[in-house]
């Protein structure tokens, strides 16, 4: 690409044609504040904060102005300061500060700018005081009184995920972002919301104490203006990850967890960390993306007061083991191809709601957190000689949809609470636990033991690769023994399937597994999944096994991960997971001794019990509940 020379603040820089002034400035570490610009999204230029002065052009937004040969740019003139400050103050007056309980308080870009640019934050009266807080089923809360109308959520939901769940309504200062089809803001028309025990508080709001508890959530919603059944939230949380001001957040479980930690009674408290959070949580403590913090996480869980620090990765190994066996059975059956993975609850909801005709393609194997939760409350409860009801399982995950998954009736509360990476980091900050400086510890035995195959679950392609490693093994076992049960002494398994790695939206390959050719595909982002399903519907493509993750790059780009996120950050997180895998002695689920032990000693070949504990069914779902708090 052609390089040109431009001048910023009287210094020369090289730039590529097609780049914007902001692109160049960010690369050269020249500070230009910006809010609506997100590298994953299109340029909207609506916050008007990234102003620069270009000789001959006056004030322009640097995010939307492309570089030209020899342009002279200034980033700190009196005119810029004045306009930028005014626009930031106007934005501040749209955002009701609820800093006290906001989990973004250590990481708030608005507060940062307020300080850096000397904003008079009360110059304009706050205008969104009466704006509602929306809750999307039991997963996500959107506090529209914090919304600065940048529209990132609308775009990410529409373009990346093709769910179109948000819409912009009204005009001018009345403009609102809201769930599609819901009334703009007529509190008197809304029914009193019902609550389940966890609804009612966002990661970042202080609504908790007044909330009625212990009521189910699924009854109240159709009373609302439920216009049609075309749009629904899949709880992926990408709106959260792309909101610059924390207006959207996961439904918080941290308060409940904190209370239990303070007063546990006779309960045993168990925390389990999902594969991907060990390479992302460091960012909440100023570390580089991809910093591996497994040992510190183990120490932190103990320090907070959990009795056991386990790993969802063990659950991932169980999922892999079961899913590989299911795949082999599937390939031999007349079941419709392809078999789809189902460990991403957002993808599952997407199928259940938008494409129920593909429900029969979903593997019935439960997701890692459900598998490990089930094992904790059965196998491990036996070891402890405890009533499962006296065991509280808390998952720490990169995901908001896992909150919904854990709450599904069919999973019988094997996981009690689900914290996002952000929520857990916030809890640590709140309790003055400085994660990077903790002395690393080992995760607890037995359920902290895992393979490398489990850890890569956090990256798009990881589930596929893990399942292929074990499918390859089981196919060989089958050739020798006729059954698909673990057997010692079967030859080396193929480990790496590099074709399925990487962050492309759709990866396709033909792989040889156990002497058999499989057509596979790996998809991330729901928009890509929709394209794929549409092609599948027209019988244009044929596949045997397909992995789908809702979030960009898989769980490492999940809706519960630290903000900000972009492709570079996601690539670093993913690379760290593959590094962990490479360095682990055990790299396949079926070689995990704990997995082997559970199958041998606990299940003892009882396939009915395995079915009961590790599998569940799906059903088409109607539009779920969205209500105003």
């Amino acid at each position, binding site marked *: 690409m052609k390089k040109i020379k431009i001048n910023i603040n009287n210094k020369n820089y090289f730039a590529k044609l097609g780049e914007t002034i902001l692109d160049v400035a960010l690369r050269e570490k020249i500070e230009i504040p910006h809010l609506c610009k997100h590298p994953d999204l299109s*340029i*909207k*230029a*609506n*916050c*008007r*904060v990234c*102003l620069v002065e270009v000789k001959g052009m*006056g*004030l322009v*937004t640097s995010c*939307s102005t492309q570089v030209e040969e020899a342009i002279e740019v200034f980033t700190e003139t009196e*005119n810029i300061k*004045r*306009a930028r*400050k*005014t*626009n930031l103050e*106007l*934005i501040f*007056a*749209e955002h009701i500060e609820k800093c006290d309980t906001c989990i973004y308080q250590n990481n708030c870009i608005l507060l940062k700018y307020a300080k850096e640019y000397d904003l008079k934050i009360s*110059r*304009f009266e706050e*205008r969104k005081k009466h704006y509602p807080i929306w809750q999307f089923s039991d997963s996500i809360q959107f506090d529209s009184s914090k919304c*600065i*109308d940048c529209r990132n959520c609308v775009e990410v939901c529409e373009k990346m995920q093709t769910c179109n769940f948000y819409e*912009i309504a*009204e*005009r*001018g*200062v*009345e*403009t609102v972002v809201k769930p599609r089809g819901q009334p703009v803001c007529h509190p008197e028309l809304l029914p009193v919301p019902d609550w389940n025990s966890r609804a009612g508080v966002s990661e970042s709001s202080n609504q908790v104490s007044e909330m009625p508890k212990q009521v189910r959530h699924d009854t109240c919603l159709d009373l609302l203006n439920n216009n049609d059944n075309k749009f629904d939230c899949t709880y992926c949380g990408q709106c959260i990850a792309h909101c610059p001001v924390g207006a959207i957040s996961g439904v918080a479980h941290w308060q409940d967890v904190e209370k239990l930690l303070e007063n546990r009674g006779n309960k045993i408290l168990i925390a389990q960390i999902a594969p991907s959070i060990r390479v992302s949580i460091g960012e909440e403590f100023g570390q580089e993306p991809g910093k591996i913090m497994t040992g510190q996480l183990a120490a932190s869980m103990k320090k907070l007061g959990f009795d056991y620090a386990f790993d969802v990765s063990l659950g991932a190994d169980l999922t892999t083991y079961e899913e590989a066996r299911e795949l082999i059975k599937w390939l031999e059956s007349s079941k419709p191809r392809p078999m789809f993975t189902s460990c991403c609850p957002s993808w599952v909801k997407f199928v259940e709601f938008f494409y129920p005709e593909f429900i029969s393609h979903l593997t019935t194997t439960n997701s890692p957190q459900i598998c490990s939760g089930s094992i904790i409350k059965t196998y491990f409860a036996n070891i402890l000689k405890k009533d499962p009801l006296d065991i509280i399982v808390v998952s720490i995950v990169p995901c908001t949809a896992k909150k919904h998954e854990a709450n599904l009736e069919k999973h019988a509360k094997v996981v009690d609470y689900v914290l996002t990476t952000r929520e857990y980091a916030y809890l640590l900050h709140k309790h003055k636990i400085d994660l990077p400086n903790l002395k690393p510890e080992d995760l607890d035995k037995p359920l902290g033991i895992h393979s490398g195959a489990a850890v890569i679950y956090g990256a798009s392609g990881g589930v596929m690769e893990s399942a292929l490693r074990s499918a390859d093994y089981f196919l060989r076992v089958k050739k020798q023994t006729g059954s698909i049960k673990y057997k010692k002494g079967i030859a080396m398994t193929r480990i790496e399937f590099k074709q399925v790695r990487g962050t492309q939206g759709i990866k396709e390959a033909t792989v040889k597994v156990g002497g058999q050719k499989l057509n596979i595909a790996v998809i991330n982002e729901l928009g890509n999944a929709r394209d794929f399903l549409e092609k599948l519907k027209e019988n244009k493509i044929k596949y045997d096994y397909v992995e789908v993750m809702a979030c960009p790059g898989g769980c490492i780009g999940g809706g519960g991960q630290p903000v900000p996120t972009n492709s570079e950050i996601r690539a670093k997180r993913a690379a760290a997971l593959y590094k962990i895998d490479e360095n682990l002695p055990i790299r396949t689920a079926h070689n995990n001794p704990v997995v082997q032990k559970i199958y041998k000693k606990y299940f003892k070949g009882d396939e009915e019990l395995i079915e009961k504990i590790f599998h569940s069914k799906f059903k088409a779902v109607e539009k779920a509940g969205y209500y105003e708090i």
Partner: protein
Amino acid sequence: MFTQKIIKKIKKAGLIGRGCNNFSTADKWELVRKAKAKDEKFVICNVSESEPGVFKDRYILENYPEKVVDGIKIAMKTIHAKKGFIYLNPEYYEQFYDYLINIINSENSNIELYEKPLHDYVGGEETAVVNSMEGKRVEPRLKPPFPVISGFLNEPTLINNCETFYAVSLINSNEYKNTKFYCLSGDGVEDQVLELPVGITVSQALKKFNHTPNNNFFYQISGGASGTCYNHKQLNRKFSGLASIIIYNINKSEKDVVMKWLDFFKNESCGQCVPCREGTYRLRNIMEEYFTTGKLDKEVFEDLIFSLQNTSFCPLGRISVNAMLSYFKNIKNKNLNEKN
């Protein structure tokens, strides 16, 4: 060749687009003609006409609709567009539908009438026109790309004002006499439209309308929302953009006059960008307070104006304070604002 000949003729006639952008029509046509289409190009005749005090497009559609249709057909032929549209505000759509459809059908032209969903202000901006026709939110798009390169359905699109097509038709048939339409309205006068030479001054136009400027009135030129206010001594000047004059009784309540403009822009903001969405609202509120209590935070007032004028996404925000500022400066001789 027809294409080059007509563009040359338009160029020679010196035709400037009759909307409010002051862009050379020949240059615009040339840009669309040269642009590469993925599939096909489009022509859109913009009859949004939403600037208060401007009603020349209605006058043209009432009197010369076949010239407008002829102009569109010339444009389609010139830029090789298979399809043309007439983008009408809801009121005009109702009034002119039958009339226009008859002309279009009798000539067998592939021109479709499109009803603008709202009779709003920003919906007349050319990228907002395109959004509107694509069923999207009616608000301006980021430019570039300009519609001449990527407009309706991301295809090269020629969007001209209704009067521009009228003028093109005249140029093509060698009847063009370098005239345009001037509108007069306001206190003590009936709404009138006159076809007068291009480039005359406000005073000359008023003379043709039989109005003698005097100190009982002030005058808003080139649009009732965004136009500039002048006193009776300042009228020896040409129009910039739209040729309209609104006469105001000099004794009209200052509050009524100013609040009408501020309300207008607050209500017409599309809500896309911060300075316009928030700024027009805040400005309206502090001015209402000023008119009630006499108190005004001058710094806030000036900062809001600065931000609106210099950082708004589209022209609507940038010109939203023009009428008020010129009114204070030229009519009230008040120094509320910075000089501009």
